């Protein structure tokens, strides 16, 4: 009976409609979590004593991308972060430009969707400061992060992610260029990785090359707002 029940559940998981029913909980989770904690809730911060001896690298550890490798070979001297989409002043930022923006340093816990946690010290440009410099238009609802790491072996399907404006303007949301007081290692997303501390690890896009402000992400990838979201993971990764 148990085996038949499990097989039935497996068949339900394969249908189109049932995962949509299950997925209805996601919006509820986001609404309730936001309501209970408040839009500006701050992720817990830690002390240097709590730091993980070495910060785990997960997913891509070295992007299989010739353009990225060229940039890495010269210490990202020619790196430019493009910012485009629904902004008044599209522009690109060199690493020096990003260092010149107001920054924040924070020791936070990184929670992977798989279940593990690690604690690291991150320093980076406040995303809110960068957005102030480009001026998102009133229509902009999401920031999309386009990354250098291809997720397919043939070099296609670059990683991407998206967050809403509440998270984009949150105090702890930074474009990190340092981990544990050292330039961000390639294994952890050099030269720039997003830190969006109130969500799970897969939202923290590594190897960020381009930001796009959009009204909707339906036209990007499979339309679910991120590489893992397109594989069925929840867009709202606050739980």
């Amino acid at each position, binding site marked *: 009976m148990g085996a038949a029940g499990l097989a039935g559940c497996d068949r339900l998981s394969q249908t189109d409609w049932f995962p949509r029913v299950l997925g209805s909980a996601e919006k509820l989770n986001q609404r309730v979590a936001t309501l209970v904690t408040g839009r500006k*809730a701050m992720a817990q911060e830690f002390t240097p004593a709590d730091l993980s001896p070495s910060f*785990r690298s997960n997913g891509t550890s070295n992007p299989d991308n010739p353009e990225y490798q060229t940039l890495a070979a010269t210490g990202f001297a020619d790196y430019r972060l493009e910012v485009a989409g629904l902004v008044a002043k599209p522009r690109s930022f060199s690493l020096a430009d990003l260092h010149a923006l107001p920054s924040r340093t924070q020791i936070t816990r990184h929670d992977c969707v798989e279940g593990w946690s690690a604690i690291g010290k991150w320093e980076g440009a406040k995303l809110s400061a960068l957005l102030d410099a480009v001026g998102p238009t009133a229509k902009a609802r999401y920031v999309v992060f386009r990354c250098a790491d291809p997720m397919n072996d043939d070099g296609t399907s670059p990683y991407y992610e998206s967050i809403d404006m509440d998270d984009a303007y949150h105090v702890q949301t930074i474009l990190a260029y340092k981990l544990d007081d050292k330039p961000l290692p390639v294994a952890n997303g050099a030269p720039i990785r997003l830190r969006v501390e109130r969500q799970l690890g897969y939202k923290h896009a590594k190897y960020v090359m381009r930001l796009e402000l959009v009204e909707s992400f339906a036209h990007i990838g499979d339309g679910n707002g991120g590489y893992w979201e397109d594989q069925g993971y929840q867009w709202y990764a606050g739980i």
Partner: protein
Amino acid sequence: MNDTSQTPVAAPAPAAAGGAASDAPAAPDPTSGTAGGELYRRHALPVRVMHWVNVVALTLMLLSGLCIFNSHPALYWGQSSYSGRPAWLEIGATQAADGRIRGYTRVFGHTFDTTGVLGVSTDAGQMYVQGFPSWLTLPSHQWLAMARAWHFFFAWVFLINGLGYVGYTIGSRHLARDLWPTRPDLRGIGRSVLDHLRFRHAAGDAAKRYNVLQKFAYLVVVFVLLPLIVLMGLGLSPRLDTLFGGWVSLFGGRQSARSIHFIVAWTLVAFVLVHVFEVIVTGLWNNLRSMVTGRYRVPQEAVHN
């Protein structure tokens, strides 16, 4: 439990049923051990509905939870998994010297070969690497995104049902009337323990009430274990952890919360095993009927040997 296996005569429960059978003119139900007595309305409709909703929700949450666990089959104390201290529980697979894949489980530094059950299992003759085996997980193969979807949907079913139950049980005075131990209950704990060990079950009016161990078990499950597992689940959410400046630290940190969540889940499994065992030995069909139709046939008194 031991004294039944050592006693050459039948265990007390079936013996009691036999005794009743010789006394009672009505045809007894030998499997229930409760021949004769009146039909009594034991469980109200809301309790029956919420009980079975709970069975479904908790089962699906256990199985999907084990699938989630399998994506990182190790547990730690503290905030972090990478603190320099090893996991207190780890399930994994390793290649033995002869080239074969072996499953292992390491608990507090002691390693056990658990090939076939934990770490490495066999399905249709095919070996596969997976923490808990596919017959214990939902989905049966490793599919974290889908497991999370099941888990978080039925978490709401479980939570709403559970709050409904707590509200009902207080509002209807089910808690005060039926679940809260009385003074005589408390004085009789020792005897109740002995009665359980001897499979000596209540009859007559006493069978209409929960016994004191049963009351404690239900109260601990409803008001300690289930709230604790919910709280520890919420502690895994990075967003909810923002409350009160990181309340999950009170429980030792997020990885401690994950460990406690896991331990409480298996404690609940242990409760269910004992619960189902008691349901069977005190009359499977009579008990099942009482949780489906509400009617319970009260075992007759004076049938003890």
